[in-house]
């Protein structure tokens, strides 16, 4: 550490605890409380990285989140490395390793720097232009453009850190812990409002907390001392929560805000274990007070990007807060009074200030007078026209401005320096205000956009609202807060405030130079390397809107979102195009305010919590019996049960053969179940389903199709009449929640006259389905008291039963075409019932089968699956299910749409069966079907919806939708695949047991 760059008169850095860290492999030292940037500066390291396009050497430019240049790769573990982190925002910790970005082989010697010399060949929008002309050259450029795209390296391994989310509700959220925010938070909390104050730094106090200057006093104390006492009183206030190291990321409608809290990033590595790294706060605030302050602007002149060129107020923070001198011979270049504060701070800390170059005519505000008293030399009405030095600034060139400020005149003065502070005035941080939908207004006098109108319950106070002088900041913050919160807090009445107020204001967006513009590099967007020349080129090429210029030149499109560059780009466009800045508007400020890690966005929804999972009561049995699971919605359903090393195909062939030859057992608990009661229940079903329900006897079941209003099939299932006014409806697994919502919606809005009540009982019942020729024998063992004769208990009927005194419902229904029973029992006994059935079926080799076998078995019978064979464009007629549409009913959902000219067209896609000429070839689901393969363009007539190899038929079968398919039975068609064309024939949809003999077997 260069001893002479660190001074010891500060209160914020603990100079007794030394911290070692590495930058570009070199071990360096800093102190607790340092940022990486302040520690590097204390080590006299200015060269941090290379710029994006020209690979120019770049250094630290700011002390905050707006930093465009000092972005580093952080983290010692290659798998966990984090790119594009701002050195100004990284708190130093023991063991930190960081490295430069965008340079190879090293930041000191970077091959890419050759781009700087080729810069005339790579103008603005160079890369769009390569698309355009000459067309063939894109192939040549592409490799190099892709290679040079992006900054930093991504981590290669999953993030090991833990992140989480928290919801927070408060009366008042104050964003920003500077002097205004502290006044507002204290006022709110003392008036019994539940208040949260957040600040992105580790300490409260903003810029005032290091402002110890004779010109700025409150009640005769230095402003920093007064504020320090205010902060100390905050701890004793109830209702106030303070969160430091918390950045507001986004401000959405209805005062919904997202803030990211850093919990462990500042800790030593060994203190972080098992702790949450970052927490995303989801905040609902009744009222929001934005006190985010202002950012200092740079000045735009030739070579304003060299390492050592730093914003003037940042130099002040480095000396006053961190105790770090940014240089030994510092020059300052300004258009406003704030650089004089820096000059005085430096001078008081023993740093020699070469001179202040000020573009204004002589002014004599208090602060300027104080600087002059200290003997600081001032070049009035002058400008820096150039800087020299490659890896760090070595000198500047100063010239006088002409009377009209359009050019520079007189003799060029060369001044040696090792640091240049620049100040172009201040930009209020209105980003959050505009994110929330607020509209801005423009103040001509000092060229700032300020908050104007907002629909939300919020205000902006302090310098983000355009108050830049200490007395107006304090007074207006107090008045605005009291009015906004409708309180009358008089803690801040009668404050005596001394403040040096700026008298003379002047601004030149692009400073004149002694060289032609084309020969200079006045940088606007430091991170994306766009210059004032690029913006002017865009205007010459016809772009007028700021949004177009932004995208064409990439100004403001870097990771800093142009926090420093946007205002100057706007100013230069306005000047060049001769329009008023206020009319030009701004580009859109989008969240997040600073980049968020993916970890913070995702929170704990990783690994086992990535998505919610639903389990059936029999889940553990399936898992124990080696089931593979399939995701159906959020359910985990048993897919197939491989024995030893069976493939899915082998397992499914075995399971489906067993189900047809003897007995199979399926967990059907996931089907949606809706209990329907009420005196109008039958009428309700008549309106919901396409078929008639009034005559369904108690104890009988019926299959129903539900349509959407557009006449397309929406859901299907079996509904059972349990009593006079009592039904139980089943829905598809995936459709359960939507069906219930839709039906409840109809009852509440369309049919309030119906006396019908719906209750979901999906999770109350476990469903065991047993099918196959031996199913009856198994059921008779499980429920000996139940009469299972076809006469007493025919297909499509239900009986109540008791199993070991537990009530259950047995339905004789079939989705496989086999003789089949479904037992519904309350879920707590589901697993035990399953085991009992399995035990009873052992003598018949009962085989558990999963969803894949279920799909195969139903396809053999031509039964549809809503959502697989239908896609929201299929009517019942398209499915060849005309029989299910009642002609007698007055109405049902979707009826009217079934008779539209488009739905009665003959040549709609219709459900058909498909057989391959080669019975061993299994079609791919989704494959296209054509009639001719030679003709171009080839007409796609349909596609395969379900396809399997059936072991029971010993051939491949498929369902498909084909244009005019109903009339094409026997037609030969083709399914062209990547390597071959498969010959197929259109058939009936039922492949097995057309006479339904097996149902009663």
């Amino acid at each position, binding site marked *: 550490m260069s001893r002479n760059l660190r001074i010891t008169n500060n209160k914020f850095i603990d100079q007794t605890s030394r911290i070692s860290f590495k930058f570009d492999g070199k071990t360096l030292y800093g102190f607790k409380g340092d940022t990486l940037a302040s520690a590097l500066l204390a080590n006299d390291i200015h060269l941090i990285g290379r710029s994006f396009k020209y690979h120019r050497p770049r250094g630290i430019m700011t002390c905050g989140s707006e930093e465009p240049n000092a972005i580093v790769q952080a983290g010692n573990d290659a798998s966990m490395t984090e790119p594009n982190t701002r050195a100004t925002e990284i708190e130093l910790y023991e063991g930190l390793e960081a490295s430069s970005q965008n340079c190879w082989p090293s930041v000191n010697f970077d091959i890419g720097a050759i781009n700087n010399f080729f810069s005339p060949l790579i103008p603005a929008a160079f890369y769009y232009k390569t698309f355009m002309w000459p067309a063939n050259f894109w192939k040549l450029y592409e490799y190099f453009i892709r290679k040079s795209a992006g900054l930093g390296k991504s981590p290669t391994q999953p993030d090991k850190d833990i992140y989480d989310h928290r919801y*927070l509700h408060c009366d008042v959220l104050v964003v920003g812990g500077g002097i205004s925010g502290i006044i507002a938070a204290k006022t709110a909390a003392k008036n019994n409002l539940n208040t949260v104050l957040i600040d992105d730094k580790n300490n409260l106090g903003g810029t005032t907390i290091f402002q110890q200057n004779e010109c700025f006093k409150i009640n005769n104390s230095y402003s920093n001392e007064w504020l320090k006492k205010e902060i100390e009183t905050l701890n004793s206030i109830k209702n106030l929560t303070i969160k430091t190291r918390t950045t507001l990321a986004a401000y959405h409608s209805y005062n919904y805000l997202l803030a990211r809290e850093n919990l462990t990033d500042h800790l030593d590595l060994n203190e972080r274990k098992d702790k949450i790294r970052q927490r995303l706060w989801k905040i609902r605030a009744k009222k929001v007070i934005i006190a985010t302050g202002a950012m200092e602007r740079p000045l735009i002149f030739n070579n304003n990007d060299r390492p050592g060129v730093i914003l003037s107020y940042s130099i002040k923070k480095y000396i006053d807060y961190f105790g770090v001198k940014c240089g030994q011979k510092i020059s300052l270049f300004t258009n406003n009074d704030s650089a004089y504060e820096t000059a005085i701070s430096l001078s008081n800390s023993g740093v020699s200030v070469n001179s202040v170059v000020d573009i204004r005519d002589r002014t004599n505000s208090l602060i300027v007078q104080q600087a002059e008293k200290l003997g600081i030399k001032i070049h009035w009405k002058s400008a820096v026209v150039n800087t020299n030095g490659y890896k760090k600034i070595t000198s500047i060139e100063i010239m006088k401005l002409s009377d009209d400020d359009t050019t520079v005149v007189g003799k060029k003065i060369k001044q040696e320096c090792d640091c240049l502070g620049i100040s172009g005035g201040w930009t209020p941080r209105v980003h959050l205000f505009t994110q929330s939908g607020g509209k801005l207004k423009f103040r001509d006098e000092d060229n700032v956009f300020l908050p104007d109108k907002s629909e939300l319950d919020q205000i902006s106070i302090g310098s983000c609202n355009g108050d830049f002088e200490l007395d107006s900041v304090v007074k207006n913050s107090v008045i605005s807060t009291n009015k906004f919160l409708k309180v009358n807090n008089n803690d801040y009445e009668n404050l005596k405030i001394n403040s040096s107020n700026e008298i003379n204001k002047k601004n030149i967006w692009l400073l004149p130079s002694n060289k032609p513009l084309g020969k200079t590099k006045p940088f606007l967007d430091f991170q994306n390397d766009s210059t004032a020349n690029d913006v002017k080129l865009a205007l010459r090429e016809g772009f007028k809107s700021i949004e177009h210029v932004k995208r064409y030149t990439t100004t403001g499109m870097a990771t800093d979102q142009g926090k420093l560059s946007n205002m100057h780009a706007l100013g230069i466009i306005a000047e060049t195009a001769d329009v008023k800045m206020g009319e030009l508007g701004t580009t859109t400020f989008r969240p997040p305010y600073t980049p968020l890690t993916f970890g913070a966005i995702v929170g704990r929804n990783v690994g086992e919590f990535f998505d919610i*999972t639903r389990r059936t009561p029999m889940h553990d049995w399936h898992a124990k019996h080696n089931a593979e699971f399939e995701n159906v919605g959020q359910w985990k359903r048993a897919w197939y049960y491989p024995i030893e090393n069976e493939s899915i195909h082998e397992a499914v062939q075995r399971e489906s053969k067993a189900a047809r030859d003897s007995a199979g057992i399926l967990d059907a608990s996931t089907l949606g179940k809706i209990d329907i009661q009420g005196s109008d229940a039958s009428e309700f079903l008549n309106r919901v389903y396409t078929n008639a329900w009034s005559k369904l006897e108690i104890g009988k079941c019926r299959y129903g199709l539900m349509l959407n209003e557009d006449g397309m099939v929406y859901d299907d299932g079996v509904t059972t009449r349990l009593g*006079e006014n009592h039904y139980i409806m089943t829905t598809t697994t995936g459709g359960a929640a939507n069906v219930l919502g839709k039906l409840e919606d109809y009852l509440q809005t369309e049919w309030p006259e119906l006396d019908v009540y719906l209750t979901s009982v999906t999770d109350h019942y476990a469903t065991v389905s047993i099918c196959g020729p031996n199913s009856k024998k198994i059921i008779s063992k499980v429920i000996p008291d139940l009469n299972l004769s076809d006469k007493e208990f025919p297909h499509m009927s239900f009986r109540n039963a008791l199993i070991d005194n537990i009530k259950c419902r047995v339905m004789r229904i079939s989705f496989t075409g086999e003789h089949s029973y479904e037992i519904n029992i309350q879920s707590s006994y589901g697993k035990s019932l399953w085991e009992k059935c399995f035990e009873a079926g052992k003598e018949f080799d009962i085989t558990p089968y999963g969803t894949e076998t279920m799909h195969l078995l139903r396809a053999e019978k031509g039964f549809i699956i809503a959502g697989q064979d239908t896609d929201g464009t299929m009517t019942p007629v398209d499915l060849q299910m005309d029989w299910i549409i009642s002609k007698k009913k007055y109405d049902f959902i979707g009826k009217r749409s079934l008779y539209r000219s488009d739905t009665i067209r003959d040549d709609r896609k219709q459900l058909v069966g498909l057989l391959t000429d080669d019975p061993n070839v299994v079609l791919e689901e989704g494959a296209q079907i054509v009639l001719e393969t030679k003709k171009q363009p080839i007409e796609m007539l349909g596609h395969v919806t379900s396809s399997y190899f059936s072991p029971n038929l010993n051939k491949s079968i498929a369902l498909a939708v084909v244009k005019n398919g109903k009339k094409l039975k026997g037609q030969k068609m083709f399914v062209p695949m990547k390597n071959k064309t498969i010959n197929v024939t259109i058939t009936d949809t039922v492949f097995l047991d057309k006479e339904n003999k097996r149902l009663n077997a």
Partner: protein
Amino acid sequence: MLNYNSTIIEAKEYSDIKISEVEPTLKINLRGKNRDFVTKIGKELSIILPTDPNTSSGNKELNLLWLSPDEWLIYSNDKNNLETINSSEDKLFNDISKTKLGSVTNVTDHWIMINLKGPKIFDMLSAGCPFNFNKFKYSKGAVTQTLLNHVDVIIHNKDINNLNLFVRRSFSNHLWLWMNDSARFV
């Protein structure tokens, strides 16, 4: 005999948070609109149906939670045996549903009841629940239907720092794991 199986095995205790399943407990979903329904329920249960949104009423044995203008949930404070559950359901069903006053549906196994106790339970909930508990926390008997880690839940404020949470059985295992994960970081 068929065996009873619970989705959650053991109660868990963390500093300031205790999570435990309370099952089997009687749960019945009630729906109805007219005055006779309201009177009848009051007589059957000796509890007045709560009509203010998100409130509850109850006595030593039972709680009645308001779910919507025509929907309520009955649940028992203590664990019940199967006979009690069945007979309660049958009686209500015969007196309400069969007489066309409204609907009575047994949802005993549809919901799993999880009891949360301790001064930090609301911090744990705030990790995955968008609901504002600031007032709810201090309102004994308050009810809310909200989301916890994207899962539908009903939360009943039994007492200070003592909540009964109802989650659908199929989600209960996942939510249980999630709650235990969140409790680690409170």
